[in-house]
Protein backbone atom coordinates (compact mmCIF):
# COMPACT_ATOMS: atom_id res chain seq x y z
CA UNK A 1 0.00 0.00 0.00
CA UNK A 2 1.31 3.43 -0.90
CA UNK A 3 2.30 5.56 2.04
CA UNK A 4 2.03 9.28 1.44
CA UNK A 5 4.65 11.07 3.52
CA UNK A 6 5.50 14.21 1.67
CA UNK A 7 3.52 16.54 -0.60
CA UNK A 8 5.41 18.96 -2.79
CA UNK A 9 4.13 21.81 -4.91
CA UNK A 10 1.23 22.66 -2.62
CA UNK A 11 2.17 26.33 -2.60
CA UNK A 12 2.15 26.35 -6.39
CA UNK A 13 -1.31 24.75 -6.45
CA UNK A 14 -2.64 27.34 -4.00
CA UNK A 15 -1.06 30.19 -5.99
CA UNK A 16 -2.62 28.88 -9.19
CA UNK A 17 -6.03 28.54 -7.51
CA UNK A 18 -5.79 32.11 -6.27
CA UNK A 19 -4.84 33.30 -9.74
CA UNK A 20 -7.75 31.44 -11.38
CA UNK A 21 -10.12 32.74 -8.71
CA UNK A 22 -9.17 36.29 -9.66
CA UNK A 23 -9.55 35.45 -13.34
CA UNK A 24 -12.99 33.87 -12.88
CA UNK A 25 -14.04 36.80 -10.72
CA UNK A 26 -13.10 39.20 -13.52
CA UNK A 27 -14.98 37.09 -16.05
CA UNK A 28 -18.03 36.92 -13.78
CA UNK A 29 -18.08 40.71 -13.55
CA UNK A 30 -17.76 40.97 -17.32
CA UNK A 31 -20.56 38.43 -17.78
CA UNK A 32 -22.85 40.34 -15.45
CA UNK A 33 -22.20 43.56 -17.36
CA UNK A 34 -22.88 41.85 -20.71
CA UNK A 35 -26.12 40.38 -19.31
CA UNK A 36 -27.07 43.76 -17.84
CA UNK A 37 -26.56 45.51 -21.17
CA UNK A 38 -28.62 42.81 -22.87
CA UNK A 39 -31.46 43.24 -20.37
CA UNK A 40 -31.34 47.01 -20.79
CA UNK A 41 -31.55 46.60 -24.56
CA UNK A 42 -34.51 44.22 -24.32
CA UNK A 43 -36.21 46.61 -21.91
CA UNK A 44 -35.64 49.58 -24.22
CA UNK A 45 -37.58 47.78 -26.95
CA UNK A 46 -40.82 47.90 -24.95
CA UNK A 47 -40.47 50.86 -22.59
CA UNK A 48 -43.27 53.42 -23.10
CA UNK A 49 -42.07 56.58 -24.82
CA UNK A 50 -43.78 59.96 -24.80
CA UNK A 51 -41.00 62.54 -24.81
CA UNK A 52 -38.21 60.00 -24.32
CA UNK A 53 -37.15 60.98 -20.79
CA UNK A 54 -37.94 57.57 -19.32
CA UNK A 55 -36.24 55.65 -22.10
CA UNK A 56 -33.15 57.84 -21.88
CA UNK A 57 -32.89 57.37 -18.12
CA UNK A 58 -32.05 53.65 -18.39
CA UNK A 59 -28.79 52.60 -16.81
CA UNK A 60 -26.57 49.56 -16.19
CA UNK A 61 -24.49 50.09 -13.07
CA UNK A 62 -21.81 47.56 -12.09
CA UNK A 63 -20.82 47.42 -8.45
CA UNK A 64 -18.16 45.45 -6.58
CA UNK A 65 -15.38 43.30 -7.95
CA UNK A 66 -14.67 39.62 -8.51
CA UNK A 67 -17.09 37.25 -6.86
CA UNK A 68 -18.71 40.18 -5.07
CA UNK A 69 -19.74 41.79 -8.35
CA UNK A 70 -23.28 42.85 -9.02
CA UNK A 71 -24.99 44.79 -11.77
CA UNK A 72 -28.07 46.95 -11.36
CA UNK A 73 -30.29 47.63 -14.37
CA UNK A 74 -32.90 50.32 -13.95
CA UNK A 75 -34.37 53.68 -14.84
CA UNK A 76 -33.61 56.90 -12.98
CA UNK A 77 -36.74 58.81 -14.06
CA UNK A 78 -38.76 59.56 -10.94
CA UNK A 79 -41.98 58.26 -12.42
CA UNK A 80 -40.41 55.02 -13.71
CA UNK A 81 -41.91 52.95 -10.89
CA UNK A 82 -45.38 54.33 -11.55
CA UNK A 83 -45.20 53.57 -15.27
CA UNK A 84 -43.70 50.15 -14.59
CA UNK A 85 -46.31 49.06 -12.08
CA UNK A 86 -49.45 50.76 -13.38
CA UNK A 87 -51.07 47.98 -15.37
CA UNK A 88 -54.24 50.02 -15.89
CA UNK A 89 -52.54 52.64 -18.07
CA UNK A 90 -52.80 52.40 -21.85
CA UNK A 91 -49.45 52.05 -23.63
CA UNK A 92 -48.38 51.26 -27.17
CA UNK A 93 -51.17 50.09 -29.47
CA UNK A 94 -53.81 50.61 -26.76
CA UNK A 95 -52.63 54.21 -26.30
CA UNK A 96 -52.74 54.87 -30.05
CA UNK A 97 -56.26 53.53 -30.20
CA UNK A 98 -57.44 55.40 -27.11
CA UNK A 99 -55.97 58.76 -28.14
CA UNK A 100 -56.08 58.42 -31.94
CA UNK A 101 -58.15 61.54 -32.52
CA UNK A 102 -56.12 63.71 -30.15
CA UNK A 103 -52.77 62.55 -31.60
CA UNK A 104 -53.85 63.20 -35.17
CA UNK A 105 -55.28 66.59 -34.27
CA UNK A 106 -52.07 67.63 -32.54
CA UNK A 107 -49.42 66.15 -34.83
CA UNK A 108 -51.18 65.38 -38.11
CA UNK A 109 -50.71 62.31 -40.27
CA UNK A 110 -47.37 60.78 -41.13
CA UNK A 111 -46.33 58.30 -43.79
CA UNK A 112 -48.81 55.55 -44.60
CA UNK A 113 -51.71 57.46 -43.08
CA UNK A 114 -50.64 56.60 -39.51
CA UNK A 115 -50.67 59.43 -36.97
CA UNK A 116 -47.31 61.23 -37.01
CA UNK A 117 -46.56 60.58 -33.38
CA UNK A 118 -48.07 57.14 -32.87
CA UNK A 119 -46.38 55.15 -30.13
CA UNK A 120 -44.51 51.89 -30.70
CA UNK A 121 -47.02 49.06 -30.60
CA UNK A 122 -45.05 46.90 -28.16
CA UNK A 123 -44.71 49.57 -25.49
CA UNK A 124 -46.11 48.38 -22.16
CA UNK A 125 -45.87 48.45 -18.38
CA UNK A 126 -43.54 45.94 -16.68
CA UNK A 127 -40.95 46.94 -19.24
CA UNK A 128 -38.06 45.73 -17.09
CA UNK A 129 -39.55 42.79 -15.21
CA UNK A 130 -40.99 41.18 -18.33
CA UNK A 131 -37.75 40.87 -20.34
CA UNK A 132 -35.88 39.83 -17.18
CA UNK A 133 -38.28 36.94 -16.59
CA UNK A 134 -38.69 35.96 -20.23
CA UNK A 135 -34.93 35.94 -20.89
CA UNK A 136 -33.82 34.46 -17.58
CA UNK A 137 -32.24 31.36 -19.11
CA UNK A 138 -30.52 33.38 -21.83
CA UNK A 139 -29.14 35.84 -19.28
CA UNK A 140 -27.75 33.02 -17.14
CA UNK A 141 -26.24 31.40 -20.26
CA UNK A 142 -24.56 34.72 -21.18
CA UNK A 143 -22.93 34.95 -17.77
CA UNK A 144 -21.83 31.30 -17.92
CA UNK A 145 -20.39 31.82 -21.40
CA UNK A 146 -18.30 34.79 -20.29
CA UNK A 147 -16.98 32.85 -17.30
CA UNK A 148 -16.02 29.90 -19.51
CA UNK A 149 -14.11 32.05 -22.03
Amino acid at each position, binding site marked *: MANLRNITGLNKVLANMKKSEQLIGKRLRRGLIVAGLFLKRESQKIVPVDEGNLKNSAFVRPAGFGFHSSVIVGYTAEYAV*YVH*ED*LEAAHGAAYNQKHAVAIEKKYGKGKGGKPFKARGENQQAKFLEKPAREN*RELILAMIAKEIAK
Partner: protein
Amino acid sequence: MNHSPSEVIRQYLLDESLFDEDLADDWSLYVDAMPPKPHKVAAIYSTTGLKDGRLMSTGETIFHNGFQLRVRGINYNAIFLKLRAATDNLLTVHNASVTFDSGTYTINNVTQAADLIYLGLNPEESRRMSWVCNFLSTITMEDEA
Protein backbone atom coordinates in the same frame (compact mmCIF):
# COMPACT_ATOMS: atom_id res chain seq x y z
CA MET B 1 -56.35 24.83 -16.31
CA ASN B 2 -59.77 26.23 -17.04
CA HIS B 3 -59.18 29.47 -15.20
CA SER B 4 -56.38 31.98 -15.23
CA PRO B 5 -54.10 32.04 -12.19
CA SER B 6 -55.49 35.48 -11.34
CA GLU B 7 -59.00 34.06 -11.10
CA VAL B 8 -57.80 31.28 -8.81
CA ILE B 9 -56.02 33.77 -6.55
CA ARG B 10 -59.13 35.97 -6.54
CA GLN B 11 -61.25 33.05 -5.41
CA TYR B 12 -58.75 32.22 -2.69
CA LEU B 13 -58.79 35.80 -1.35
CA LEU B 14 -62.60 35.80 -1.41
CA ASP B 15 -62.67 32.47 0.45
CA GLU B 16 -60.43 34.02 3.08
CA SER B 17 -62.93 36.92 3.42
CA LEU B 18 -60.26 39.50 2.68
CA PHE B 19 -62.36 41.13 -0.03
CA ASP B 20 -66.06 41.42 -0.78
CA GLU B 21 -67.62 39.09 -3.33
CA ASP B 22 -70.36 41.55 -4.25
CA LEU B 23 -68.87 43.73 -6.99
CA ALA B 24 -71.07 46.69 -6.03
CA ASP B 25 -69.67 46.90 -2.48
CA ASP B 26 -66.50 48.48 -1.16
CA TRP B 27 -63.38 46.32 -1.26
CA SER B 28 -64.63 44.14 -4.06
CA LEU B 29 -61.99 42.25 -6.00
CA TYR B 30 -61.68 42.32 -9.78
CA VAL B 31 -59.48 40.51 -12.29
CA ASP B 32 -57.33 42.38 -14.81
CA ALA B 33 -59.42 45.58 -14.72
CA MET B 34 -60.72 48.16 -12.27
CA PRO B 35 -64.06 49.92 -12.56
CA PRO B 36 -64.23 53.72 -12.17
CA LYS B 37 -66.47 53.32 -9.11
CA PRO B 38 -66.53 52.70 -6.17
CA HIS B 39 -63.34 54.27 -4.80
CA LYS B 40 -62.35 51.32 -2.65
CA VAL B 41 -61.61 48.38 -4.93
CA ALA B 42 -58.84 45.92 -5.58
CA ALA B 43 -57.77 44.02 -8.67
CA ILE B 44 -55.48 41.16 -9.55
CA TYR B 45 -53.53 41.52 -12.77
CA SER B 46 -51.73 38.72 -14.56
CA THR B 47 -48.04 39.46 -15.04
CA THR B 48 -45.18 37.61 -16.70
CA GLY B 49 -44.42 34.34 -15.00
CA LEU B 50 -41.18 32.51 -14.50
CA LYS B 51 -40.21 29.18 -16.03
CA ASP B 52 -38.31 27.25 -13.43
CA GLY B 53 -37.05 24.10 -15.16
CA ARG B 54 -38.40 20.54 -15.26
CA LEU B 55 -38.80 17.84 -12.63
CA MET B 56 -36.42 15.00 -13.51
CA SER B 57 -38.78 12.28 -12.27
CA THR B 58 -41.91 13.28 -14.19
CA GLY B 59 -40.66 15.64 -16.86
CA GLU B 60 -43.19 18.22 -15.71
CA THR B 61 -42.19 21.83 -16.32
CA ILE B 62 -42.61 23.99 -13.27
CA PHE B 63 -43.95 27.42 -14.10
CA HIS B 64 -44.52 30.16 -11.57
CA ASN B 65 -47.42 32.41 -12.52
CA GLY B 66 -46.93 36.09 -11.89
CA PHE B 67 -49.64 38.36 -10.58
CA GLN B 68 -50.00 41.81 -9.14
CA LEU B 69 -52.45 42.80 -6.43
CA ARG B 70 -53.50 46.44 -6.62
CA VAL B 71 -55.61 48.15 -3.99
CA ARG B 72 -57.18 51.54 -4.67
CA GLY B 73 -58.90 53.94 -2.31
CA ILE B 74 -58.91 57.42 -0.87
CA ASN B 75 -57.36 56.77 2.54
CA TYR B 76 -53.61 56.21 2.35
CA ASN B 77 -53.34 54.13 5.50
CA ALA B 78 -56.50 52.09 4.93
CA ILE B 79 -55.25 51.01 1.51
CA PHE B 80 -51.86 50.11 2.88
CA LEU B 81 -53.37 48.03 5.68
CA LYS B 82 -55.70 46.25 3.26
CA LEU B 83 -52.83 45.30 0.99
CA ARG B 84 -50.65 44.37 3.96
CA ALA B 85 -53.36 42.03 5.29
CA ALA B 86 -53.80 40.39 1.89
CA THR B 87 -50.03 40.06 1.43
CA ASP B 88 -49.56 38.54 4.88
CA ASN B 89 -52.30 36.04 4.17
CA LEU B 90 -50.92 35.11 0.74
CA LEU B 91 -47.49 34.49 2.22
CA THR B 92 -48.94 31.81 4.50
CA VAL B 93 -50.34 29.82 1.57
CA HIS B 94 -49.13 26.24 1.52
CA ASN B 95 -51.01 23.82 -0.75
CA ALA B 96 -54.27 25.70 -0.30
CA SER B 97 -57.24 24.16 -2.08
CA VAL B 98 -59.57 26.41 -4.06
CA THR B 99 -62.78 25.16 -5.62
CA PHE B 100 -64.94 27.16 -7.96
CA ASP B 101 -66.95 26.66 -11.14
CA SER B 102 -65.96 23.23 -12.36
CA GLY B 103 -62.46 22.85 -11.05
CA THR B 104 -60.40 22.35 -7.94
CA TYR B 105 -57.03 24.02 -7.82
CA THR B 106 -54.15 23.81 -5.40
CA ILE B 107 -52.15 26.94 -4.77
CA ASN B 108 -48.86 25.32 -3.82
CA ASN B 109 -47.22 28.51 -2.73
CA VAL B 110 -47.08 32.25 -3.18
CA THR B 111 -43.88 34.27 -3.11
CA GLN B 112 -43.71 38.03 -2.73
CA ALA B 113 -41.53 39.34 -5.56
CA ALA B 114 -40.90 42.80 -4.12
CA ASP B 115 -41.98 45.11 -1.33
CA LEU B 116 -45.29 46.95 -1.31
CA ILE B 117 -45.13 49.86 -3.76
CA TYR B 118 -47.02 53.12 -3.40
CA LEU B 119 -48.17 54.34 -6.81
CA GLY B 120 -49.22 57.78 -5.65
CA LEU B 121 -52.33 59.67 -6.60
CA ASN B 122 -54.10 58.65 -9.75
CA PRO B 123 -53.30 61.40 -12.30
CA GLU B 124 -56.81 61.34 -13.70
CA GLU B 125 -58.58 61.25 -10.34
CA SER B 126 -56.64 63.30 -7.81
CA ARG B 127 -58.32 61.92 -4.69
CA ARG B 128 -57.61 58.29 -5.35
CA MET B 129 -54.36 56.49 -4.73
CA SER B 130 -53.05 52.98 -5.08
CA TRP B 131 -50.70 50.50 -3.48
CA VAL B 132 -49.49 47.45 -5.36
CA CYS B 133 -47.57 44.29 -4.60
CA ASN B 134 -46.16 41.69 -7.00
CA PHE B 135 -46.15 37.94 -6.46
CA LEU B 136 -45.18 34.66 -8.03
CA SER B 137 -47.30 31.59 -7.44
CA THR B 138 -47.38 27.91 -8.28
CA ILE B 139 -50.86 26.61 -9.05
CA THR B 140 -51.90 23.12 -10.10
CA MET B 141 -55.30 21.85 -11.15
CA GLU B 142 -56.48 18.87 -9.16
CA ASP B 143 -59.45 17.55 -11.08
CA GLU B 144 -62.26 18.48 -13.40
CA ALA B 145 -65.88 17.78 -12.60
